[in-house]
């Protein structure tokens, strides 16, 4: 590309600066505020309290405090939900991809009508508000005595996530030339061998992108995990929600803020680590929506 004209370049850069600020500012503000007390960060008098930390100084003797983090991690043992979340998200991502790759591959390589209808049905399934689904699970799960355990929740999340996974992976496999595996079939491979030898080596970018979205779904889920897990299996987001308090009881919002900041750190690392794959994965897949 030749160099941009100056006017366009200025405009582009101005837009970029504006957007990046808009994207990062609320988070930066939250990180800053997580070291204040609630009366400062959520001040009713003026947002200037959050900058100067007037009430923080009054209450703790310094302009910054670790009370939020202490409350979340030590008093409320936030590491327990963190471990549960790790188990849930990693399992959900892994199982979703395992099941989804096989299904997505089949959908992409079949040209029968029912393949289309399966895709459409999957889409319709996705439209159901999850709260309604979860309310319906409760009684059967209690009767079967499988309520409250991590594996149940993992399978439910995999199932709820399956329509999106199937769609994305199906689009991705469409972009891998058919000739590739078809020639393997001609050479005498079975379908599964063709899949294993030919497709698996070239599918990683698409799988990683889809995996990221599955990961985010498991990580950020509230509707399913809050209703299907018992206390000792609780994951991060319901725990954070419980910090916010309920109608008749005061919560501790600063614990929630500190917990959110800590919860975002691993995501940073994850995104930085997989950034290149995500982009190249989408490059290869999903183009044929």
């Amino acid at each position, binding site marked *: 590309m030749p160099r941009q004209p100056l006017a366009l370049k200025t405009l582009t850069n101005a837009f970029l600066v504006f957007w990046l600020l808009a994207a990062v500012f609320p988070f930066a503000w939250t990180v800053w505020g997580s070291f204040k*007390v*609630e*009366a400062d960060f*959520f*001040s*009713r*008098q003026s947002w200037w309290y959050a900058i100067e930390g007037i*009430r923080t100084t*009054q*209450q703790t003797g310094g302009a910054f405090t670790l009370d939020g983090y202490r409350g979340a991690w030590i008093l409320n043992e936030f590491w327990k939900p963190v471990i549960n979340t790790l188990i849930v998200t990693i399992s959900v991502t892994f199982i979703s991809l395992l099941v989804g790759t096989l299904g997505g591959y089949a959908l992409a390589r079949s040209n029968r009508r029912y393949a289309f209808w399966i895709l459409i049905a999957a889409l319709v399934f996705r439209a159901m508000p999850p709260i309604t689904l979860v*309310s319906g699970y*409760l*009684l059967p*799960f*209690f*009767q079967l*005595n499988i*309520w*409250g355990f991590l594996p149940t929740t993992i399978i439910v999340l995999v199932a709820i996530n399956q329509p999106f996974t199937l769609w994305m992976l199906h689009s991705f496999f469409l972009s891998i030339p058919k000739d590739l595996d078809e020639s393997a079939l001609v050479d005498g491979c079975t379908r599964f061998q063709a899949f294993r030898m030919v497709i698996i080596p070239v599918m990683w970018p698409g799988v990683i992108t889809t995996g990221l979205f599955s990961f985010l779904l498991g990580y950020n889920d509230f509707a399913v995990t*809050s*209703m299907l897990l*018992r*206390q000792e299996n*609780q994951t991060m987001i*319901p725990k954070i*929600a*419980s910090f916010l*308090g*309920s*109608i*008749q*009881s*005061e*919560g501790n919002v600063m614990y929630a803020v500190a917990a959110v900041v800590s919860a975002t750190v691993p995501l940073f690392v994850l995104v930085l680590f997989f950034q290149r794959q995500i982009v190249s994965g989408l490059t290869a897949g999903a183009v044929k929506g």
Partner: protein
Amino acid sequence: MTIKLTRAFAAGAVSVAALLAGGGAALADCGIQGAASVRILSNDFEALRLVNSTAAECASATVTVTSNATAEHKNIQVPALTANPAEYTVAMVANNSIVPLLNAGLIRPLDDLVAKYGASLQPNQLIKIDGKVMAIAFMGNGQHLFYRKDILAAAGLDVPTSYEDVLADAQIIQDKGLMQYPLAASDKPGWDLAAEFVNMYLGTGADFFVPGSAELAIDNENGMKVLATMRAMTKFMNPDYLTYDANELNKVWDAGSVALMNQWGSLAGAAIDPKTANPDVAANTGFAAAPTIGGGTIPAAALWWDGFSIAKNISDEDAAASFQAMVHAISPDMVKAHPDVATWLVAGYSPGPAAVGVIANATEGAQAYPMQPYMGLLHTALSTGLADFIAGKEDAEQALKDVKASYDASAKEAGFLN
């Protein structure tokens, strides 16, 4: 054999957990005999967590005690107790959340257990329905008046005892330039807004329903009076009042921008907490009974209790053990050790400064939140039906009509109306 071992191991694990939770407190002798399992489901706030961890002291080599404190308890309890055996042996409930359990017949009468193990309970702790004890209450709550002593003094006013006074006082405070928006209420459409209406309507002494039926009866001069008062108060509120819920009220109170408001007793402690509250405001915060309305004689606020009930679909041994563990959990000793956590209804409780308002409500004869089987449906109908009215977008007649239409539709679905 393996099963027994696993059980013993589980019991051991839990008793260790109980030791840790109780801050090293010795295992208590709760008098439970034989093997049993106690499983508690409760809402998630400090007082209930305290009760849960005290119950956990009853764990022994043969008795396991587990608990699940979650904000989703209302959604979980019915399916959890429907299963046989029930997932939980104890469900912590309040006036409103006991109703679905009663409607579905999922909790057992406790009379024999009270007779056997309930020596430390007071008669007024027993929730009796049709003569049978269905739950044991251990703490009370309710919305009552918070007032600013300094502002009232500067305006030359006494603590208001009726909503008519509240409105007149707000006018004076505003006129004297002491405060721009002297009033606040939890008017956010949803559960909060509906609770405001229920409080005031209870103060009129009128019935919500035609006695003996599910027919709605709020469409009368009392309903109109309540709505008119609610609307009149919004004139003295911050224009953001539609976004205020109970938690938010405490924040604006702490910021010193409100002089009079009706707020939960369970949040009173936080408003005067020397560690976190704004010292200038906290020093001048007073609590009193909720105001009366329209010449009524009782505080216009619902009284709430929190208590426990025992599941029906469990063995009698588990039920007895659960009852004993809970009686231990709400024992006078526990209350003596933690007097400031809640307004306890237990013998030997000496109320602290934060409990003044709830007790004043109770002594002045405020009504309990109704336990009618269809009250929850009305609450939900109010939560959306009053939104336009409180925002000033429709009149009171239309609002009551909307609430009735919405309630009738859901009462028909639930089989209460034909």
